[in-house]
């Protein structure tokens, strides 16, 4: 360690050297010339003034709040705008972004969100995102915690690295929330409940540490089964679809066939009703005819009988293929009409006469 004197000598030598150079420009100044103390003093004064000027004001951006410390002790906070303070590091200013919504990502990292599409880091962070569900299945949960620094004083002076703590607590809380659910619930129905619970419990912890952080939201991102298991999960979905499809197809077939059968049934019934009407009408008609004939027959039974018989014969004989006449006691029947087509005419003729 060099003594103060040596340091001073060294300094003077340097000042002289510098003065020499400057003198070289203004005019020749050889060694042995008197030191320009006035110049040095004014230079030092100017530097001092400059330092004073630059260190006695500060600007607070709209999204920030400033905490001012004098000799290490906090003397107050200030709002956005231009402010003055004591120079030379007597007053120290710490700026905290209190209005900005900040976020912590778990299980993934955003690389760049300035472009049209947000880019994410390619490699997953399985240590962060893999966790156990209540039925001891593994689930990959990615989430985001959005928060704001509500109280810059507490944020700076109640806890060291509150953000690291926020990360630790959020991981712990999320694992508790997921661990208290069945794996299939976490994947489907319980998302909202889990994020609400995680928000509330993380805030509770932050309040306990009194670190001035306000947890705004906890948002679940991708909640997936582990990579190796994903195809099996897809298979389940497909099978579910297949089940619906099979049920739908069967229902479709039933819907096609039952109305058709109902129609056919109605048709059969209608047909039978038609038959019934026909049959009854037929009976009525026939009996009415018979009744009329009977009534007439009764008034002259013998004549009517003979007439009916003869009329019938008249109608029957011409259309019959062959007529044989048999006589008791004679051999063999005598063919009356053996030439079809000609002899019936003779009979008709004889009848007509």
């Amino acid at each position, binding site marked *: 360690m060099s003594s103060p004197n040596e340091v*001073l000598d060294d300094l003077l030598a340097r000042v002289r050297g510098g003065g020499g150079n400057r003198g070289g420009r203004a005019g020749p100044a050889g060694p042995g010339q008197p030191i320009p103390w006035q110049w040095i003093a004014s230079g030092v004064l100017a530097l001092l003034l400059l330092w004073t000027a630059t260190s006695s004001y500060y600007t607070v951006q709209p999204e920030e709040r400033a905490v001012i410390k004098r000799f290490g002790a906090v003397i107050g906070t200030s709002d956005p705008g231009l402010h003055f303070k004591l120079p030379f590091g007597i007053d120290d200013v710490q700026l905290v972004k209190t209005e900005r919504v900040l976020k912590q990502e778990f299980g993934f990292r955003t690389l760049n969100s300035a472009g049209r599409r947000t880019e994410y880091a390619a490699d997953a962070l399985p240590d962060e995102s893999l966790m156990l569900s209540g039925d001891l299945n593994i689930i990959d949960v990615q989430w985001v915690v959005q928060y704001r620094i509500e109280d810059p004083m507490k944020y700076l002076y109640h806890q060291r690295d509150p953000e690291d703590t926020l990360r630790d607590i959020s991981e712990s809380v999320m694992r508790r929330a997921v661990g208290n659910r069945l794996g299939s619930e976490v994947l489907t129905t319980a998302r909202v409940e889990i994020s609400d619970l995680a928000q509330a419990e993380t805030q509770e912890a932050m309040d306990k540490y009194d670190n001035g952080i306000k947890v705004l939201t906890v948002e679940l991102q991708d909640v997936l089964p582990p990579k190796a298991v994903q195809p099996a999960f897809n298979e389940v979905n497909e*099978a579910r679809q297949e089940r619906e499809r099979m049920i739908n197809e*069967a229902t479709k*077939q039933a819907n096609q066939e039952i109305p058709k059968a109902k129609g056919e049934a109605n048709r059969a019934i209608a047909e039978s009703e038609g038959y019934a009407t026909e049959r009854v009408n037929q009976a009525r008609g026939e009996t009415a005819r018979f009744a009329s004939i009977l009534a007439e027959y009764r008034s002259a039974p013998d004549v009517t009988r003979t007439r009916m018989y*003869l009329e019938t014969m008249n109608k029957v004989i011409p259309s*019959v293929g062959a007529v044989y006449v048999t006589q008791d006691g004679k051999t063999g029947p005598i063919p009356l009409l053996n030439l079809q087509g000609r002899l019936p005419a003779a009979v008709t003729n004889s009848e007509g006469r």
Partner: protein
Amino acid sequence: MLRIPLLIAAFLLLLLLRSSVFVIDQAEQGIIVQFGEPIGAVITTPGLHWKTPFIQEVRRFDKRLLPWDGDVSQVPTLGREFVLVDTTARFRIKDPLQFLRSVRDEAGARSRIDDILDSVVRDIISGTNLEEIVRSRDWKVDAKVLEEEALPRDDVDLGRPKKGRALLEKEMLAAVTKQMPALGIELVDVRIKRINYIDSVRRQVESRMISERQSIAERFRAEGQGRSQEILGQMERELRSIRSEAERKAAEIRGKADGQATRIYGDTYGADPEFYAFFRTLESYGAMGANTTLMLGADSEYFRYLESTRRRGSAGH
């Protein structure tokens, strides 16, 4: 050249001032130490403070809540599964004097906490089932979801944990606090940050999950087939009932009509059955066609007049 001693004097004064004034930050607390021996009370108020120059020095300690992050340790649970446990804790330097005497600085404190917490975590985890560590006291199984899955999970007991995660964390805190000698440290909380299977167990669990899913898929398919068959069966039943019903109705209607017709015939024909027989017989003769051969007796009614005509008329015809 009088100015140089003046400058030296000013410099020395500055040095003296520098050595006797010190700043305690808002986040800090300090102890004045003289030849390694703490002097006076702990300085907790931030700001400018004085000490004897050169012979006294200041030891500063953080006043804030400090994080502690444990190593990831591989521990077997009571059920003999190996898990990786990562714990985190928060502590505060409560008694800087004690702290200074026992561990000197934060690095010393951390290594002491490491030792104690590590062994406590191992003790508690290895004496507990994994379910107990993962679940909390308010664990309850949604029966509906379980039914949807319809999987009997023999390997996992779905009952409510006796202690649960939060209580275990409390136990850890209590055990550490009890075991920790007077280090001037207050441990605020201990939390299980991460708990996961080790890789080999994880692969086993994954393959179990795969087979589980596959069996669920299989069940869905079988359910589909079953439901489909059921629907088709119901359809068949309905079809048969519709058709037979129709047949029955049709037969009834026909029967009724036949009956009615029979009654009508009976009523009318019954008035003179002999005439009906005559009438009907004659009618049925009318139905005889060309391929019928009619045999008539020569003495039949029909030929009676035929003969007499032949007798009356000439044989010329």
